[in-house]
């Protein structure tokens, strides 16, 4: 499986660390809403198809990435920085694309 990092380009999955389900919403740290905490910790969509995920390019630029991966085919349909505020220099030039 290859993940095309917006900074580094296509890299083998061994360079990445899975950081969990990208659909979760973390409650405010001081929240006493146990239902919300329970959902954050345990509830998963577990789709057979496209899934929003967070991956870190831990063996590369170390950026955190939003990845949409198909759980049936491993096809990656989208990769973006979790942080949207990296400058234009953080992206590969069009001609570098594989």
């Amino acid at each position, binding site marked *: 499986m290859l993940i095309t990092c917006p*900074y580094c380009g296509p*890299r*083998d999955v061994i360079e990445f660390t899975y950081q969990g389900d990208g659909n979760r919403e973390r409650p405010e740290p001081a929240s006493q809403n146990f239902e919300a905490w329970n959902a954050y910790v345990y509830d998963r969509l577990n789709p057979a198809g496209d899934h929003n995920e967070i991956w870190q390019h831990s063996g590369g*630029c170390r950026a955190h990435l939003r990845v949409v991966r198909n759980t049936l085919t491993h096809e990656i349909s989208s990769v973006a920085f979790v942080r949207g*505020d990296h400058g234009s*220099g953080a992206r590969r030039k069009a001609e*570098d694309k594989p």
Partner: protein
Amino acid sequence: MVERQSPLEPEFHVGSHGNFEHGVEILLTETRPGSIVQLAAWPGEEKKLIAAIRTVVGLALPDGAGGGMSDGAKSVFGFAPGKFTVADEAEGLAAAFAKAVTPDIGTVTDLSHGRTAIRIAGPKAEWVLAKFFAIDFALPAFPVGAGRSTVHHDVFAQIHRTGTDQFDLYVFRSFARSFWKALCHACEEVGYEVQ
């Protein structure tokens, strides 16, 4: 200047090794930069950091991810969004950057003692590195001057292409000897010279 001890020393054997009867196709050296510095810009301050690099080392970074260059003595390349590695034969780079990179622009981390720089050169350099790293070493994908962050097993490595057939590898100092031994083994079948 105090002579810095090399972590490679017990395994650093000058001369020709491996299958070199038909000539050596790899040259290995430790470049021992006096300074290795890592710079990181706060979001939105990347251009100011690139300007500071130009002021301090006189190298104008090309635009784009992984862009970099080298003038022989000084090298600079991007290794992550808004982050750059700068190396210099001379000492004192961190102090110079600490003045130019003000706290509102970003951070300066002195890695001069934390990284070991190994240069691999020669017609088979690409071929040997391809055994180590799952990245594209072909010139169009990895042009001269560009930098890459990747791993060999769990040893993080930054690779700076400083020539068509030449790469400077920056690895953790504590892993450098083990990495060096592995690199020497990988070079054996083509014949290599340590200088």
